[in-house]
C-alpha cells in the first residue's frame, strides 16, 4: 500500500498560517472554529393523520462535529455556506471539506487512488463567504452517547429510526446550524447557502422544506413532527426577522436568509432518477456502449438487465466516474479519512488547534459509541441489494472498514484509547447507513420517508419556488446520473407541466433546467409559473465535482451567486 504523506505542521505554524490568509483591506476575519455541537435527546414522531397511532421516537444524545472556516472578508452580506456530503452516513470532513472548498484540500493530481496529501487550495470558497462543515450523526468525527454503550444489543437498537431517518437527519443539521448562528450573533442574520452533495440533495431538500414550512412540522400537517425544532426555528426567526416575531414567518421572508442551494450530483427524487437513468443508459446513445468498446466486453441491454451492475461488475469501472477503474473516487475519500486521523492534518485543514477540543479526548467520551460490533468490518457482510445501493452505501463502507477497524494516525496517542465500540473517525458508517435503509422501524411501519420516495421530489419542487438552485451535471457520474434529472423531475406530473433542460452543447455553461409549474401545483404558492435551475455540465467530472473540476465549479458558483444578487459583482475577484 502506498505510504501516505503526513503534513507535519506544528500548532504554532497553523496559527501563523491562519493569520496569513489573504484579507481585503480593513476587514478582520472571524476566528476559525471546530468542535462538537451537543444535541440533546429529542422526541419526535411520524403520523399519517392519527394522533393515537403515531410512531413516537426519541433520539439519543449526540455530539455533532462541525468546522467553521471564516471568510476571507466579513461583510454584513457575506453568506455562510453550510456543507455536507451524503451517504446517508458519510462524512463531510473527508468529502467536501477535503475537496477543494476549504483553504486546504486533498491533492487531486494523483491519478489512481490519489489524494495522498493536503495542499493549499487555489480556489478556496472562503473567498465567497464563511464555510461551515458538518459531519452527520455517527459519520466522520460525530458520535452518539448512550448509557448502555457497552451492550452490543443496545447498540444494535440505537441504529434505527429514532436516530436515522431523512427528516430527523435534516433536523440535526438545522439544529447545529441555528445553534451555531445563535452562538455567533454577528452571523445570525447572514444569508445561508446550503451546499449538499449526493444524498445531501435529500438532506438539503428536507432542511429547506422544514425551514420554509416549519409551522407544519408542529401543527400535525406534515408526516414528521418535531415540535421542539419548530420552536427553535421560530426563536431564530424572532431574532432575524423581528417584524415577524411571534408569528409564523412566511416562506418568501424566510428565503431572504435561506434562499440559495448548491447541489452537487444530488439525489432529489431518487426513485424517479433511477428509473429514468436505467431507461437512458439502455438507449443507443448510452455511454455504456463506449465503455463496452474500451473494455472489450460489449454492452448488451438484453444480456445485462442492470446497467450499473454491468459497469461495475463486468467492465470494472467506477460508477462515480466511469472512465476510471473501480473505487477510484473512494480511494480519495479513504485517503482523506486516513490523513484526517493525524492530529496535525486535522488542525491544518480545520484551521484550529484540535488538541484543544475536549470532545476528542477518550476521557470525555466514555459513553460514546460508533459501531454495533467492535468487529466493525465483520458487521458489513455482503447483503443482497441493487447496484446503486451497493455503490452508494455499502462499497464505501466496506472499502473503509479496515481503517475503521484499526484506526491509522496518531489520535490514540494524542487523545487516548477509545473503547472497542468507539472510533475517532468513520467516513462512511455502514451501520448508520443501514439504519436509514433497512433497520428502520418507521419504514417497517409504512411511513414513506425513505430517501427514494417521491415525496422528496415534491418537496424539492416546492422549495425551488422560493430558493435559488444550482445543480451540477457531472457527465461521468453514473451513481447520480444527472443527465436524467430533468426527465425525472418531469415525472412529477401533478406539479410540473415540463422540466426542460437548456444547454448550448459541449461544456454547456450555463446549462439550465426550466421548470414549468402547473397552476394547481401548490395551493399556498399562488401565481407560481416558472423557475430556472442553474445546471452547468462538467464534462470531466466524477460524482465529487469539486474534486475533479474545482476551478470551474468555483467560477460557476461565483457567477451564479452574483447573478442571483447574493454577491456583489467585483471584477477584482475574477
Amino acid at each position: 500500500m502506498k505510504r501516505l504523506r503526513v503534513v507535519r505542521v506544528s500548532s504554532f505554524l497553523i496559527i501563523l498560517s491562519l493569520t496569513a490568509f489573504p484579507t481585503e483591506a480593513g476587514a478582520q476575519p472571524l476566528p476559525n472554529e471546530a468542535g462538537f455541537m451537543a444535541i440533546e435527546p429529542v422526541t419526535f414522531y411520524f403520523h399519517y393523520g392519527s394522533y393515537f397511532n403515531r410512531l413516537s421516537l426519541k433520539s439519543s444524545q449526540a455530539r455533532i462535529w462541525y468546522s467553521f472556516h471564516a471568510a476571507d472578508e466579513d461583510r454584513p452580506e457575506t453568506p455562510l455556506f453550510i456543507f455536507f456530503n451524503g451517504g446517508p452516513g458519510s462524512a463531510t470532513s473527508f468529502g467536501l471539506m477535503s475537496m477543494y472548498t476549504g483553504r486546504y484540500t486533498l491533492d487531486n493530481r494523483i491519478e489512481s487512488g490519489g489524494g495522498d496529501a493536503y495542499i493549499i487550495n487555489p480556489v478556496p470558497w472562503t473567498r465567497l463567504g464563511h464555510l461551515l462543515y458538518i459531519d452527520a450523526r455517527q459519520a466522520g468525527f460525530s458520535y452518539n452517547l448512550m448509557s448502555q454503550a457497552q451492550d452490543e444489543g443496545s447498540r444494535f437498537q440505537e441504529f434505527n429510526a429514532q436516530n436515522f431517518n431523512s427528516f430527523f437527519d435534516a433536523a440535526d443539521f438545522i439544529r447545529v446550524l441555528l445553534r451555531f448562528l445563535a452562538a455567533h450573533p454577528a452571523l445570525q442574520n447572514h444569508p445561508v447557502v446550503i451546499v449538499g452533495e449526493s444524498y445531501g440533495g435529500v438532506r438539503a431538500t428536507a432542511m429547506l422544506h422544514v425551514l420554509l414550512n416549519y409551522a407544519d412540522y408542529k401543527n400535525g400537517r406534515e408526516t414528521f413532527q418535531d415540535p421542539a425544532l419548530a420552536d427553535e426555528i421560530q426563536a431564530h426567526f424572532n431574532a432575524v426577522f423581528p417584524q415577524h416575531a411571534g408569528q409564523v414567518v412566511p416562506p418568501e421572508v424566510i428565503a431572504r436568509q435561506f434562499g440559495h442551494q448548491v447541489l452537487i450530483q444530488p439525489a432529489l427524487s431518487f426513485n424517479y432518477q433511477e428509473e429514468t437513468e436505467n431507461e437512458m443508459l439502455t438507449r443507443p446513445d448510452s455511454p455504456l456502449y463506449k465503455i463496452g468498446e474500451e473494455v472489450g466486453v460489449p454492452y448488451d441491454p438484453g444480456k445485462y438487465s442492470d446497467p450499473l451492475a454491468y459497469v461495475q461488475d463486468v467492465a470494472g469501472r467506477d460508477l462515480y466516474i466511469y472512465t476510471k477503474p473501480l473505487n477510484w473516487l473512494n480511494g480519495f475519500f479513504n485517503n482523506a479519512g486516513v490523513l484526517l486521523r493525524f492530529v496535525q492534518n486535522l488542525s491544518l485543514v480545520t484551521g484550529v488547534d484540535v488538541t484543544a477540543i475536549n470532545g476528542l479526548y477518550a476521557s470525555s467520551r466514555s459513553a460514546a459509541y460508533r459501531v454495533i460490533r467492535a468487529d466493525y468490518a465483520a458487521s458489513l457482510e455482503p447483503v443482497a441489494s441493487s447496484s446503486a445501493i451497493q455503490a452508494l452505501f455499502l462499497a464505501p463502507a466496506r472499502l473503509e472498514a479496515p481503517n475503521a477497524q484499526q484506526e491509522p494516525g496518531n489520535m490514540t496517542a494524542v487523545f487516548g484509547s477509545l473503547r472497542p465500540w468507539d472510533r475517532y473517525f468513520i467516513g462512511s458508517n455502514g451501520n448508520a447507513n443501514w439504519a436509514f435503509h433497512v433497520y428502520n422501524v418507521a419504514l417497517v411501519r409504512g411511513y414513506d420517508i425513505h430517501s427514494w420516495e417521491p415525496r422528496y421530489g415534491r418537496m424539492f419542487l416546492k422549495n425551488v419556488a422560493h430558493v435559488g438552485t444550482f445543480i451540477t451535471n457531472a457527465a461521468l457520474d453514473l451513481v447520480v446520473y444527472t443527465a436524467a434529472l430533468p426527465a425525472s423531475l418531469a415525472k412529477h406530473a401533478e406539479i410540473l407541466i415540463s422540466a426542460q433542460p437548456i444547454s448550448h452543447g459541449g461544456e454547456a455553461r450555463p446549462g439550465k433546467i426550466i421548470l414549468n409549474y402547473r397552476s394547481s401545483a401548490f395551493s399556498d404558492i399562488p401565481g407560481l409559473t416558472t423557475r430556472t435551475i442553474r445546471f452547468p455540465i462538467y464534462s470531466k467530472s466524477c460524482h465529487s465535482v469539486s474534486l475533479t473540476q474545482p476551478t470551474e465549479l468555483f467560477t460557476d458558483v461565483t457567477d451564479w451567486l452574483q447573478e442571483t444578487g447574493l454577491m456583489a459583482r467585483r471584477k477584482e475577484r475574477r
Partner: protein
Amino acid sequence: MHSHRRRWASIVLGSMAFMAWLLFVWPTALRAGQRAEAGGRGRVRLELYGGFSLLNPTDMNQFVDYDRSVQEFVYDAYFDYLRDNNMIQSWEKNVEGERKKIKNALPFGVRFRYSLLDFLDISVGFQTMRRGPSASLNFLYTRNETATTRYLESLNIAPYKMEVKAYYPSLGVHVHKRFGRILEAEGFFVGGIFFADCSYESQWNYAWTIQGPGYSWEPYKSEGLLSEEGSGTGFSLELGGRFGIPVHRKIDIFLEAGYAYQVIKSLSGSGIEIHGEDMETWEGRWGMKSETMTTPWGTRRFLTPTNYETEGTASEDFGLNLSGFRLRIGISVAF
C-alpha cells in the same frame, strides 16, 4: 374546570332536592303511613337488590371499533399493499384474544319505601352499576420479505380495558296490587340524579424481529400506555314493574324489570400517555374526534372517542348512554 363546577352544582342541587324530600315529603308520607299502619295496611320497608342491566354505550364502545379498524388498516391493509406490489412475498397473522365491548352491567341498590296507601308507596334509594371488561390481546404478524428472510411484528396489549361506573340516588313512586295471598304486582317510576365515570386503558408493547437463516435479531421494541378517564352528571328515569312473593311475615322477595333512561351528555377527565420514557398528561372534555389517515396504501376516516385536545376539534359530541333494560331480584324487609 367548568365540568367540575357543573358536577358539584349538580351534586349540591341533587342533595338539596334529597334533603327537601327528607324534610317535607318523607315526614308527611310517614305520618300518612302511620295512620295507614294504625289501620293495619302500611309499613316501612328496606329493600336490597341486584341484577343485570343490558347496555349499549355506543360512543364508549367506539373505542373498540376504532382500535380494531385502525389496526386492520395499518397492519392488514398495509401488508396487502406490500404483497400486491411485490414488496413482500406473503404475510400472515396470528391473533389471541379479542377486544370486548360493554354490553351489560351488574346493578346493585338499596331503597327505603313507605306505604302511603294500600296501593301506593314512595321510596328513596341509591343504586350503583359497574362494568369493566378487560382483555389480553396478542397479535403476531409475519411478513415473508424474501424466501429466507421474514419480519415478525408482535403487538401485545394487556390490559385492554374499558370501564363504566354509575351511581345514582333516586326517588320513586310505586303502585302495587295484591293478587291472592302470595302474589303482589307493582308498577314503579324512579328518577334521580345520575353520576357516571368512564375510562379506557390500553397498555401495549411492540417488538420487531428479523429472522433469517441462522439468525434472529430484534432491531426495535417499545412499550406504552394510553389511559383516559371521564366523569359527568345526568338524570336517570326508570319505569318498570315487579312481582313479589312473601317468604316470611316481614320478608318478601321480588323480581323487577324495567327500562332506564340514563344519559350523560358532557364528560371531562384526565388522560395519560406513556411511550418509553416519555409521558404526557392532560385534562379535557370528551368528544368524538375524526381522524383521516392518508397513507401510500389508501385513505380512511376513523372516529375515536377521546378527551385529548377536543376543544374545537371534536367532530361530534361524546355521550355516555347507559340506558337499557334492567332485571333485578331483591329482598324486601318490613319494619
